């Protein structure tokens, strides 16, 4: 049974991740008074991109072509490490939380390289912004995970999340709340959502993540978008793992609660995007440093 669950979790992520994007769009549409696109539209988009041809600029190298695949591979590998709610992940070992963080790092590294590879001034700007902001998001994530690790006494994601049950919330509620908030900010920043970035903008000068993939097309773009959906799923799972302490031991119940929470998170993102404007780019670091401060505070609370 446990083996099946371990195997099912990543599969669930692979299939359900684009659904979150659909839910976010639908929420935003409702707030804007529109009917919105079908909830399954992201799947259609991916399918459409996979059937298209690809255009490569003559001045790009193998890095430009490798980038999307490396990103997708990193995302799938990370998916194997992250537990679904309290359920153990497919692979878990001591210190896998660092591997998780740096799989995201590797992915970002290649995204930045492939953006620089095009020698476009836009993509260069996007790369520079991405690097600055993720350099600030990364400590917030790592310190947040360290808080959870310190509290549960484990350094493997599966064990940490198994330990974050209702009792944990009763003893260290404030610390977990702070960590969860920090992770939420990281989640918004890493997934280029409002208030840090605007995934729907067409204004190349204001983009952060989107501008780095302007030159990609067809299946390559499909890979990137799919990997981005997986990232939404991965970081969302971290957030839900902390904030929703449903660890009844009943696999079906826990799984259902986690899945519903994920959809709830998508709705929450939609609400955030519908109710506030983007930050001025200059103020994004301040926001992210706020996330770091929250994680540090949480860490201090559990170390007390």
């Amino acid at each position: 049974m446990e083996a099946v669950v371990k195997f099912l979790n990543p599969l669930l992520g692979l299939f359900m991740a684009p659904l979150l994007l659909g839910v976010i769009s639908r929420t935003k549409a409702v707030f804007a008074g529109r009917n919105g696109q079908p909830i399954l539209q992201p799947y259609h988009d991916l399918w459409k991109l996979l059937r298209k041809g690809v255009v490569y600029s003559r001045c790009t190298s193998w890095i430009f072509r490798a980038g999307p695949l490396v990103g997708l591979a990193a995302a799938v590998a990370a998916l194997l490490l992250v537990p679904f709610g309290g359920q153990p992940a497919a692979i878990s070992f001591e210190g896998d939380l660092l591997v998780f963080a740096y799989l995201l790092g590797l992915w970002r590294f290649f995204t930045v390289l492939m953006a620089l590879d095009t020698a476009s001034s836009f993509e260069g700007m996007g790369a520079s912004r991405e690097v600055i902001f993720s350099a600030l998001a990364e400590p917030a994530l790592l310190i947040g995970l360290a808080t959870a690790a310190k509290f549960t006494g484990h350094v493997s994601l599966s064990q940490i999340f198994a330990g974050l049950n209702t009792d944990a919330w009763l003893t260290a509620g404030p610390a977990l709340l702070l960590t969860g908030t920090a992770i939420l900010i990281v989640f918004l920043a890493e997934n280029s959502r409002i208030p840090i970035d605007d995934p729907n903008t067409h204004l190349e000068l204001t983009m952060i993540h989107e501008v780095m993939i302007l030159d990609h097309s067809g299946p390559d773009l499909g890979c990137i978008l799919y990997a981005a959906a997986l990232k939404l799923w991965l970081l969302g799972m971290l957030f839900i793992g902390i904030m929703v302490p449903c660890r009844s031991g009943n696999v079906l119940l826990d799984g259902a609660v986690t899945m519903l929470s994920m959809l709830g998170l998508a709705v929450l993102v939609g609400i955030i995007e519908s109710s506030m404007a983007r930050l001025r780019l200059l103020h994004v670091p301040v926001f992210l440093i706020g996330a770091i401060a929250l994680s540090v505070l949480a860490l201090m609370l559990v170390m007390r």
Partner: protein
Amino acid sequence: MPLANTITIFNCRPLEIGQIPVLDIAVFRNTIIDAVANGQRIAALFAAPTHDQRFFLYALLADDNAGELYVLSAETADTYPALTPDCPQAHLFEREIAEQWAIKPLSHPWLKPVRFHPGYRPGRDAWNRKAGESILPCVTDFYTVVGEEIHEVAVGPVHAGIIEPGHFRFQCHGENVLHLEISLGYQHRGVERAVCGGPNKRTLPYMQTLAGDTTIGHTTAYSHLVESLGQTPTSPRAESLRGIALELERLANHTGGLGALAGDIGYLPTASFCGRIRGDFLNLTALLCGNRFGRGLIQPGGVRFDVTSPLSITFLDRFYRFQKDVTVAVELLWNTPSVLARFEEAGALTPQICRELGLVGVPARACGLEMDCRYNFPAGVYRFSHIPVSTWHSGDVFARAYVRWLEIQKSIAFIIDQMNMLPEGPVITATKPLIPNRLCVSLVEGWRGEICHIGITDSQGIFRHYKIVDPSFHNWTGLAMALRNQQISDFPLCNKSFDLSYCGHDL
């Protein structure tokens, strides 16, 4: 108070060509420089040939405080001392003169083509380009900043969004913009030249498509001009309907603009609702004349469609609903801190720069300058119904957005007023032929700002020269200045807050 060396001219009142003082070029130059230093503004500066190929420079000066207009002229040779070094707001006009007529303003600091078209005088060119040499738009020298840490970003002419073509060059230090240079001309069609020899059947459609979103503004300016030159009386009812159409155009564009500003900062509610409400206002224009942009509504002599009383009831019924909608949608902007944080202090201009560059319309009023043709140089219905000038003091994106909101409110009140008490009478009268040898100025406050049409008739009573100054022509430089020391990521926001026309500039 009359200005020395000039003659006072009134909006929509023709002047005999012979009455315009012809000055020595040095006196011409000094008069303009002194007038601008004393707070006046160059509304138009252009060169016009006579039938025997002599060239005259004409300048139209506007004194917004006094509500006076002055004209002066000078005969010029193929070169003349440039005004620009002493009067920056002449710079684009002088480049235009050089491009069109190969009349070179000497010691112009940055003499480059404006619209990248061959000159109008065969065999002569201000840049000594050969006849028949292909001229590519925006292939020219750009201002560059050099240094290890400087990078150049070129945007356009093809943009990611659906906007008109224009080329923008940023000199950046990191995210900081040191300088922005804007180069346009992709949409040059040669309208001014095509109008010469008119008015004929084609003239009105040209005016309707000068800038697609300002159809009412430009056709009103043109119609006023033709009516004045022909001394055709128009009925008060027609003028009221023109006023209603002009304010509807302002409402639609201001609402759309505020929505687009919200969209640029990712604030969805206002973006979505204003997009729809803009369409609602356009549909009201369609209710009046069958076309959302008001094409075919206004023509010399009056308007082509009357408003029956059931129509006005339907109109007002819908209008009250849209008034509520737009109020709710726009008030959200001022009540959302994250929106204000983006708007405030972004792309700020000082009144000083505004005056030096001769900006008009919303950007000028957002700096606290009280200028509005409806108030300073009223024509048509605005002679009888005044609209207060809306200003704000901070000069930033917020000010430009807020002035547009103030204007929305005033336009709404104006339309309700006019619709409720439309004068009786016919809506159209037959036009008469134009009087020969006259110069006439027609100013209309379009939604972007001052629209200036100047027509000169020859001895046959047809247009010998026609000059159009769209507000965008004045204001593009303002956008470039507003971007200095701003974040490059704020450019779309600043650009949208100016909301300028590409084809209105390119003509």
